[in-house]
């Protein structure tokens, strides 16, 4: 998978957190690539290790974090081997991050213009006036109305949605190669969510940045991402293009996630949920960590960890169900529906245009 289109390559990453109770194995052998210009969504429930993964990339893990193995290659350099000083010059310049809660992620005592201009002054050594002028441009770009007059305002004078626009402006001011968005819309009203997501997509085109989009909200993923990685208990259990994950999921955990997402045609009174709770990562179970909650678990799931099985060139899933010797199981009804739709879609596409189909065009059919 090492090719030039990858801007970031995470390999065999393992992160433990040292606690009094023992080592919490938060990230257990995670590998993925981020391609230039794409949006990769990392999906999973709380505690699955999504945020730890991105914090490790940023070099911002808590002090008790211990990276036991792995590499994070960015422009042929391993970020894990960088010194603190070197990481400082990468953060906010090459890799920027948007945080979850815009209400608390801005400094309450600093004018927002200066907050946006700060990365320019830090990384480009720009003078304050010049940096503020660029900050003003960026404010306009992220859609803050009356930017000239508002540049000297303080965060408390803005609404949540506007503040998240400011946070986005801060992240993008240096045109970073990689933007990490850690649940950027979770704290916002649903009506504002869509605006912010649209803004991010729009800016991604303008600035041509790659995005790692962390979320637990599959609904958001469908519209945002090119590819999706599903994380569970510190591991990636399935990854593929958006269509592959949404319409042809192979891992029972992905089935569970998708089934528990309300859709327009979901019928019945009750929204299905995944029974049980995630395993204790102080002492992860042998075999597949999801086995205990998995109605389709095989005996081997409790004994041996499943490797990744290839579904297509872009689609891999770590479940023993894909092993040639595994018994054939029928996924939940909703998933079967999705798979049927997907098959029809594929047929349509093949009929319409013979050559290989870029992922982007399939998206419109969702």
């Amino acid at each position: 998978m090492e090719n030039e289109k990858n801007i970031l390559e995470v390999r065999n990453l393992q992160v433990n957190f040292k606690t009094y109770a023992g080592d919490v194995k938060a990230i257990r052998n995670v590998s993925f690539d981020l391609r230039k210009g794409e949006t990769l969504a990392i999906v999973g429930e709380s505690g699955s290790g999504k945020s730890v993964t991105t914090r490790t990339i940023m070099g911002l893990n808590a002090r008790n974090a211990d990276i036991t193995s792995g590499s994070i290659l960015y422009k042929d350099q391993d970020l894990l081997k960088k010194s603190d000083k070197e990481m400082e010059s990468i953060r906010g310049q090459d890799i920027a991050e948007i945080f979850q809660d815009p209400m608390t992620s801005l400094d309450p005592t600093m004018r927002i213009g200066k907050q946006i201009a700060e990365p320019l002054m830090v990384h480009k050594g720009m003078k304050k006036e010049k940096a503020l002028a660029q900050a003003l441009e960026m404010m306009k770009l992220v859609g803050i109305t009356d930017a000239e007059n508002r540049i000297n305002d303080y965060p408390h004078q803005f609404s949540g949605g506007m503040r998240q626009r400011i946070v986005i402006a801060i992240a993008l001011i240096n045109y970073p190669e990689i933007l990490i968005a850690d649940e950027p819309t979770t704290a916002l009203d649903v009506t504002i969510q869509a605006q912010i997501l649209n803004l991010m997509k729009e800016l991604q085109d303008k600035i041509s940045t790659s995005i790692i989009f962390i979320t637990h909200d599959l609904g958001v993923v469908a519209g945002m991402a090119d590819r999706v990685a599903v994380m569970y208990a510190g591991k990636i259990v399935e990854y593929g293009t958006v269509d592959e994950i949404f319409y042809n999921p192979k891992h029972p955990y992905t089935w569970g996630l998708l089934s528990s997402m309300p859709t327009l045609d979901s019928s019945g009174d009750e929204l299905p949920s995944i029974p049980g709770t995630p395993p204790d990562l102080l002492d992860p179970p042998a075999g597949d960590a999801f086995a205990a909650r998995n109605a389709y678990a095989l005996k081997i799931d409790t004994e041996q960890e499943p490797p990744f099985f290839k579904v297509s060139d872009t689609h891999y899933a770590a479940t023993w169900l894909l092993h040639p010797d595994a018994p054939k199981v029928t996924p939940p009804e909703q998933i079967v529906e999705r798979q049927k739709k997907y098959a029809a879609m594929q047929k349509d596409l093949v009929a319409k245009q013979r050559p290989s189909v870029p992922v982007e065009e399939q998206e419109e059919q969702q």
Partner: protein
Amino acid sequence: MAKYLAKRIFYLILTLFIVITVTFFLMKLLPGTPLTNQAKLSKSQIALIYEQYGLDKPVWQQYLLYLAGAVRGNFGTSFQFSDQPVSYLLSSRIGPSLQIGLQAMIFGVILGIIVGAFGAMRQNTWVDTTATVVSILGISIPSFVLAVLLQYYLGLKLGWFPIAEWGGFIYTVLPTLALGATPLAESARFVRTEMVDVLSSDYIELAKAKGLSRTGIIYHHALRNSLIPLITIVGPLAVNIMTGSMVVENIFSIPGIGEQFVKSVLTNDYPTIMGLTIIYSFMLCVVLLITDILYGIVDPRIRITGKAN
């Protein structure tokens, strides 16, 4: 802002009026008279002196007379210091007190901020522990005990500083240290707690994500936000220094108003007690007013003037 200031000044005057009233009557309840120690005086002499100072009138009349005088800036003459006007007595003695008080405040708070900030930045290391121990000592040792210890070790044993004289700056060092210990300890403790809180906040995380260096984060983001709550304790600290100075000035023989306050209470020197009380209350009110204004300057969320829109 002007309207706000006018309002605050009105309250200041009201506060002073209440202080004068309460102090006046409480003072009259004190046992003894200004002439208690003058056993040699005959009854008729005493009556004469009483009449001269108006002490023969009923208390309420004395009160009204005092108020009338105070409004015109006449605070009476001292009983104990050979008929000097109180206003002259105080103005000639307030200098050393202000100097010691301000020095102690500045030394204590600034060093406290530094100690507290370092404690927070190196949380749970020996630096932090040392800072905590210093704060606990500073808070628990009364200033007069510290004053005596300083005199003994730094003054007597090591001979670095003069003990009980008043002259140039060198004479102010020990009293400043003695008085500054409490503000140092209090602000160190306060800043540490605040800073630990601030350092774990989301906007510090964002500052890190921007690529700011450690010092940049502390200087540009953490410090200002941790210092805001410190302003609230500046008022109480000033009170602490003022009360502390009464004893400490005595110990170091500083010719200040604190020393005089103690003397005047002991001798029932009514006009001096009143004058000093007014001065102390006035200084305290001004400190509180300044902290309120400072609050607005440091924290934009509670700025007194709204933008005229």
